[in-house]
């Protein structure tokens, strides 16, 4: 599944909001890459900048600084309309709220096929119909659902429509911003299973943004932990979970409640005391493919604490 081909590369991405003299640094110089066919999980608490990262990558904001390179092209420097359109076809998004993200005045079929009009695809009516039906079936709905309006669907079904819309232009990369947080537990598992199936069938690459750490661990190959606009730790999902180095990651993991009463009675939460990271801080790679952000002294101290 994993190739070594970097589909997306983010270099020193910054996204500030507010007045330039006193900006809010929502995303403060982060760098990472995503390999083709892999899922990168992005976790962090609310306000850490994880959603902003996703939105900046897909071009919903004008970025403050840095580069986003997708398939070898810097997406914020693509000038020609044609190339821009091509990029948008390749990169799609699934949103958190399946209620707010679907136009209530459009049928499911219209929602899914809206991208076809914009990109001038499937002009033949029969062809278009067939494509819509195949998309509906791919996400576990069927042709009867095509003419129905969003209010006629349950939350889980709506999220399936959102997924079908994201797939409609045959993208290679999907940003899923908390795609299951608004769903019920029993429905969450359905949607996550669906996302995994689709990934295998279509060789999709995911950036999966969420605050539910157990779900992120389950779906991701690698995980990036964000804190105050920076990626503080990045590595293989198992590595991050079993051998966290950054104290913030440790604290975050220790706070996840597990569905097991005996373990829960024993679990000790590790509080995180904020440590200022001076300008000399940078990404270190103490273990192969396991990155930690901090100064030399900090990282050495943390590694000792983690007993690696």
């Amino acid at each position: 599944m994993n190739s070594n081909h970097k589909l997306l590369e983010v270099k020193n991405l910054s996204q500030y909001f507010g007045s330039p003299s006193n900006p809010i640094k929502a995303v403060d110089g982060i760098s990472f890459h995503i390999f083709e066919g892999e899922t990168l999980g992005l976790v962090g608490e609310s306000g850490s900048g994880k959603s902003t990262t996703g939105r900046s990558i897909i071009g919903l904001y004008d970025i403050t600084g840095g580069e986003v390179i997708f398939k070898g092209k810097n997406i914020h420097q693509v000038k020609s309309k044609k190339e821009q359109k091509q990029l948008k076809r390749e990169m799609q998004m699934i949103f958190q709220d399946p209620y707010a993200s679907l136009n209530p005045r459009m049928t499911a079929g219209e929602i899914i096929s809206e991208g076809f009009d914009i990109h001038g695809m499937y002009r033949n009516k029969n062809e278009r119909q067939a494509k819509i039906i195949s998309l509906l079936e791919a996400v576990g709905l069927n042709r009867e659902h095509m003419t129905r309006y969003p209010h006629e669907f349950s939350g889980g079904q709506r999220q399936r429509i959102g997924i079908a819309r994201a797939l409609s232009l045959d993208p290679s990369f999907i940003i899923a911003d908390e795609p299951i947080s608004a769903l019920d537990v029993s429905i969450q598992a359905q949607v996550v299973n669906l996302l995994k199936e689709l990934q295998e069938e279509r060789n999709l690459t995911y950036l999966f943004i969420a605050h539910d750490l157990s779900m992120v661990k389950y779906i991701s190959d690698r995980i990036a932990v964000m804190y105050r606009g920076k990626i503080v730790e990045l590595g293989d999902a198992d590595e991050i979970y079993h051998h966290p180095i950054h104290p913030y990651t440790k604290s975050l993991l220790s706070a996840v409640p597990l569905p097991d009463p005996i373990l829960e009675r024993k679990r000790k939460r590790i509080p995180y005391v904020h440590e200022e990271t001076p300008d000399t801080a940078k990404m270190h790679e103490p273990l192969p493919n396991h990155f930690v952000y901090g100064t030399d002294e900090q990282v050495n101290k943390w590694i000792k604490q983690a007993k690696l």
Partner: protein
Amino acid sequence: MKKPLLEVKNLKINFKTYAGLVQAVRGVDFTLYEGETLAIVGESGSGKSVTSNAIMKLIPQPPGIYADGHILFEGKDLIPLSDKEMSKIRGNEIAMIFQDPMTALNPTIRVGKQIMEVILKHKKVSKHEAQERAIELLRQVGIPMPEKRFNQFPHEFSGGMRQRVVIAIALAADPKLLIADEPTTALDVTIQAQILELLKELQKKRKTSIIFITHDLGVVANVADRVAVMYAGQIVEYGTVNDIFYNPKHPYTWGLLGSMPDLNNKSDEKLYAIPGSPPDLTNPPIGDAFAPRNKYALAIDFEKEPPMFKVSDTHYAKTWLLHEYAPKIDVPEPIVRRMERYKKEAELGE
């Protein structure tokens, strides 16, 4: 022997809507003992919040209808009480913590005053004493510099601190019963862990009984003494927290446990998802409401509603699978695997 504080008996609540009569709660029975925490789990629409609002008599009538049943609080039925009588109990003997700490607080009133309001209404104390108590409460719920914070407005607090204020208000009149309706769902995991610790600590000190409503089984495992699993307006399984997590009997409980990954799930194993979606309660299905989503459903499930079968003195489940003539069905493999893994970890940790 423990004394029951609250007994809910055959509670039925309907709502009149344009689409018809919604049977939101369809015969709920449970008992809450002094000093214990009962968790009610279920997905949205299962009736867990309606049940808890009903105990507080917060169901608007119309459209709500208390169709049947009793809510006995210290032996006294709350359902026939008038609004005036109820207002002496609400906030005083039974208090509630809501999900969203921003909407639960009045943004235009200083938090100290909001806490004092409760004390002044229910306790015969002077304003000065009320103020002192309010500051003490802020300290107890872990708000630093309570004297200063007393005079601040809700917007000056972070989400977690706001929820602490909500808890302080709920505890202001020393209630015997605290209903917490998804109190940590809107919070980050680290803040959630702090609030759960706080609630447990306060409960230990004050011997408050807690009804904890949530859909997060991790949270349940953390806080609950006993658990009631709700589906389609009914309790389908209840027992001690160990009964539910280590010996679940209802296929819906299996589904809930299986659909939650834990930190050890291999990413190549599929999650044990429950197919379909919950039934429409304007027209509840005949027989077992879970049958259409249940791969273990028997023919009788579509005809007759199962009774509560007794598994042990503490453990009951409402599924025909427990009938003596039912085929023997084991707990699905992914859940068994997980329980074994936990057992191993628990032993390693000793």
